[in-house]
């Protein structure tokens, strides 16, 4: 076999869900990461607990491309149900490691791949008489085989196993022994030079971390001073709240008194979870909930209440593929339109749209500042792809700034100013002052309602008062644009081909842009990070000859927002839409741009 392909390939591991492959897969990905090479693991799992097929992708990329590659170079086939189809996806020249018990081990129908049949169960059997444990250990056998065949550093793998299982010495030893057995088997039976792919140590990940977006969100909430969580379990958002509650238990329980500096309530449904958040936010806590599309749908009425009664709160939408129940364990960016105007009447919300762990952490933290500064709900839109998959990230930084608690008048402040009207635009920025329940001052109490109200929070049906009230709300949300994250722009400033994207498509767009630039297409790329849209977005469109909007939804929901803001530029906007539920890869973007760009770019 000729020279190896080093640090640029994708491993795909096909197992049955419930077989306990998650820790083995994480160990594999993390070992490569610890060897200093960029990795991007993606778990493609079913909406099911046991018995359905699942795939775990580990893209190894020294070029630092972290999107789904869309190809498979190394395949580990553990699932009889999918093996036949899986094997067909392997790239020519690819390498297949297959459970020898599968019929496809003997007859796989490919003469352009290298096949290694491994007796996973037999190797594992020596370590565990118990059938269940043996099944788990079979997954560690492939870690061992791949360690040998891809030239991973066994010392690193062993250290990762140690870190994974913490203080459980017996478990650590057992897993390390099984990996060693996998290595020994491969050494004895296979010629590793026949495997075209290899990992070589680099120093790309020094100082970096590997973290799921939902974990970063939970950390952001912790550091952002969130004290109240009202939530209802739903894939793929549950790990935001569960992760946060774990952090609360670790850092928010008074060691002497046992008292909690947080409250977390698992609600009866998403309506109640947002109701709790609004109750807590009204009472002065920094409150959040996390859900996904179906939960957001249920929250509609309360979202309008929060907007109109001007109550702070943070709602995480970890988007999944809709409509309806849709594909609960697949990704999409289909909730932009819904979140933007969730609820009836002229309701509008501020959306923060982070991409990658650092931004998810940062925006999650700052969402509480924005919520209290603007006394409204802040929607943080992430998605399953970046929420539930491990992503390579810079270290998350300890915050240097204090909380922005917004315009709250306490007893002393009321004494000083001598007047208070809950909904009066005192400062001309559309943001009124508020007081918190329990404030012992005659000026403090007010009556919060979702019905029509005047500046003093009294009921009114007066058309002029109501018009002024909703106009002020408009000014308030528009004014927030000066504070919310502006779009970022990268690429050739003179490029006339522009890409606009947001959220987790960041990785696919970066790779696509590099590939297109290699084809001689000078490109600029803008990533939107919040809605309402900044004027910079319009300027960017104006500066380009053609704009490709890259979105993971069918209708181009962000493009719609853009075109509403700048209808005259609509003709420039082309849509690249990918919405089947898989994490986006660079290919559809490259293909779409290549196939049409010639019409717009003249030599």
């Amino acid at each position, binding site marked *: 076999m000729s020279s190896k392909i080093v640090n640029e390939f994708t491993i795909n591991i096909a197992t049955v869900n419930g077989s306990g492959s998650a820790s083995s897969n994480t160990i594999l990905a993390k070992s490569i990461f610890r060897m200093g090479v960029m990795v991007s693991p993606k778990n493609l799992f079913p909406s099911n607990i046991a018995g359905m097929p699942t795939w775990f992708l580990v893209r190894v990329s020294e070029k630092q491309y972290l999107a789904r590659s869309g190809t498979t170079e190394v395949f580990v086939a553990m699932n009889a149900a999918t093996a036949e189809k899986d094997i067909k996806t392997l790239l020519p020249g690819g390498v297949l490691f297959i459970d020898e018990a599968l019929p496809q081990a003997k007859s796989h129908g490919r003469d352009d791949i290298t096949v290694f049949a491994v007796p996973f169960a037999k190797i594992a059997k020596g370590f565990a008489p118990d059938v269940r444990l043996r099944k788990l250990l079979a997954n560690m056998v492939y870690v061992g085989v791949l360690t040998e065949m891809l030239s991973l550093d066994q010392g690193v793998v062993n250290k990762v196993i140690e870190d994974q299982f913490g203080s459980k010495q017996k478990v650590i030893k057992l897993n390390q022994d099984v990996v060693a057995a996998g290595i020994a088997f491969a050494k004895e039976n296979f010629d590793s030079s026949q495997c075209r792919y290899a990992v070589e140590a680099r120093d790309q990940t020094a100082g970096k971390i590997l973290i799921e977006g939902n974990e970063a969100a939970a950390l952001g909430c*912790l550091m952002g001073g969130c004290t*109240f969580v009202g939530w209802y379990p739903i894939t793929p958002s549950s790990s935001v709240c569960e992760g946060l509650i774990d952090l609360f238990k670790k850092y928010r329980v008074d060691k002497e*008194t046992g*008292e909690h500096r947080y409250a977390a309530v698992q609600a009866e449904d998403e309506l109640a979870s*947002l109701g709790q958040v609004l109750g807590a936010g009204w009472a002065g806590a920094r409150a959040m909930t996390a859900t996904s599309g179906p939960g957001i749908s249920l929250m509609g009425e309360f979202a309008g209440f929060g907007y109109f*009664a001007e109550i702070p709160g943070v709602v995480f939408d970890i988007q999944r593929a809709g409509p309806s129940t849709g594909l609960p364990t697949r990704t999409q960016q289909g909730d932009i339109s819904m979140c933007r105007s969730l609820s009836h009447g002229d309701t509008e919300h501020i959306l923060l749209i982070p991409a990658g762990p650092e931004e998810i952490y940062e925006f999650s933290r700052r969402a509480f500042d924005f919520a209290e500064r603007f006394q409204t709900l802040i929607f943080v839109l992430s998605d399953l792809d970046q929420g539930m998959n491990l992503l390579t990230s810079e270290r998350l930084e*300890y*915050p240097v700034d204090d909380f922005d608690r917004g315009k709250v008048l306490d007893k002393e402040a009321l004494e000083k100013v001598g007047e208070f009207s809950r909904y009066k635009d005192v400062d001309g920025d559309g943001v009124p002052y508020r007081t918190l329940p329990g404030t*012992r001052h005659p000026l403090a109490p007010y009556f919060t309602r979702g019905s029509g109200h005047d500046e003093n929070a009294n009921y009114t049906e007066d058309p002029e008062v109501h018009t002024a009230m909703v106009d002020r709300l408009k000014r308030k949300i528009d004014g927030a644009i000066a504070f919310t994250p502006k779009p970022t722009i990268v690429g050739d400033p003179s490029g006339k081909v522009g890409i606009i994207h947001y959220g987790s498509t960041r990785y696919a767009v970066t790779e696509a842009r590099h590939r297109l630039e290699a084809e001689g297409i000078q490109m600029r790329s803008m990533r939107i990070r919040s809605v309402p849209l900044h004027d910079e977005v319009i300027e960017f469109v104006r500066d380009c000859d053609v704009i490709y909007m890259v979105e993971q939804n069918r209708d181009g929901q962000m493009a719609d927002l853009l075109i509403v803001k700048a209808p005259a530029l609509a003709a420039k906007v082309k849509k690249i839409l990918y919405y089947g539920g898989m994490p986006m890869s660079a290919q559809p973007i490259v293909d779409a741009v290549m196939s049409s760009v010639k019409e717009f770019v003249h030599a």
Partner: protein
Amino acid sequence: MPDSAAKTNRVGLEKKDYSGSKSTLCIGCGHDQITRHIIAAAFESGIDPYNVVKTSGIGCSSKTPAYFIDKGFSINSVHGRMPSVATGANAVNKHLVTIGVSGDGDTASIGMGQFCHVVRRNVNMVYIIENNGVYGLTKGQFSATSEEGSLKKGGEVNPFDHMDMCTLALDMGCSFVARSFSGDAKQMVNLIRAGLSHDGLAVIDCISPCVTFNNLPGSTKGFQWLREHNVSLHEVGFVAPYEAEEVDQKPGEEVSVGMPDGSHIRLHALSEKDYDPTSFHAARQMLERDRSDPDHVYTGLIYYKQDSHTHDQVLQLGDKPLSLLNEKELRPRQADFEALIDTFH
């Protein structure tokens, strides 16, 4: 009960300090009676009005928090969802005194789920259901608490059996369940006072006639029906620790139920000589009898259990409200944070 001649209560406030804005409900509405009972109870119990949180949903009943204790903070939320809002607010500051006002449409239909769950969580609040058997604000549709065969304006007969919120609350584990009638001032005021002293969720299902849409002689939630069919289980007295004991002492059967704050509910037997509201089985039997006996409406303290475990206790909340915690109290120290981030490498 304080001397009715006394102008100020134990915190030095007059009754008018517990008033609210003028009611906009129909003249004679039962809800306005309840508003007066809430004012009287808060005054007599010397509640700090600034510490009061009033929560409500949507409907005629849910408007009433505007009509009492305007020194308190009020949140009139969305239809049927008052319990979740109260749950959130209550968790932030356990010292707030939460009074929830809802109606039969708000609680028994659109909000039944949230009602069940706020009972299950035992949020420390008084939950008053102003129950008139009809949707008033939408002009007179039967509600789920209206008895089968009841008549409403226009003579329409309700074809469905009713839901009983006291039975539901009891089944959900509620530790304070009462039924009352807006026209029985003494009973209602003392039940509210007891509810305010109770550690946990106190449900008071108060029949509160709608004079406009559901007050025919054959309306089973109407004034005439209640006057003719209301059976008080007992005379309800309430004595706070700081109040003189001589009040309400009457000869005959009397049960005194102690509360954690040193208050006592004094029940002077009337119709039911041996009724024991601390017995779950007695309460269950009473509610079954109430349901199977359309000629009587039994009111009084149905059930009381002292050892309730409130939501703020379950949440292990400290004295300092969550709203007042600062960066230092909420963020881990930097060294701890960095150590945590290290685990992600």
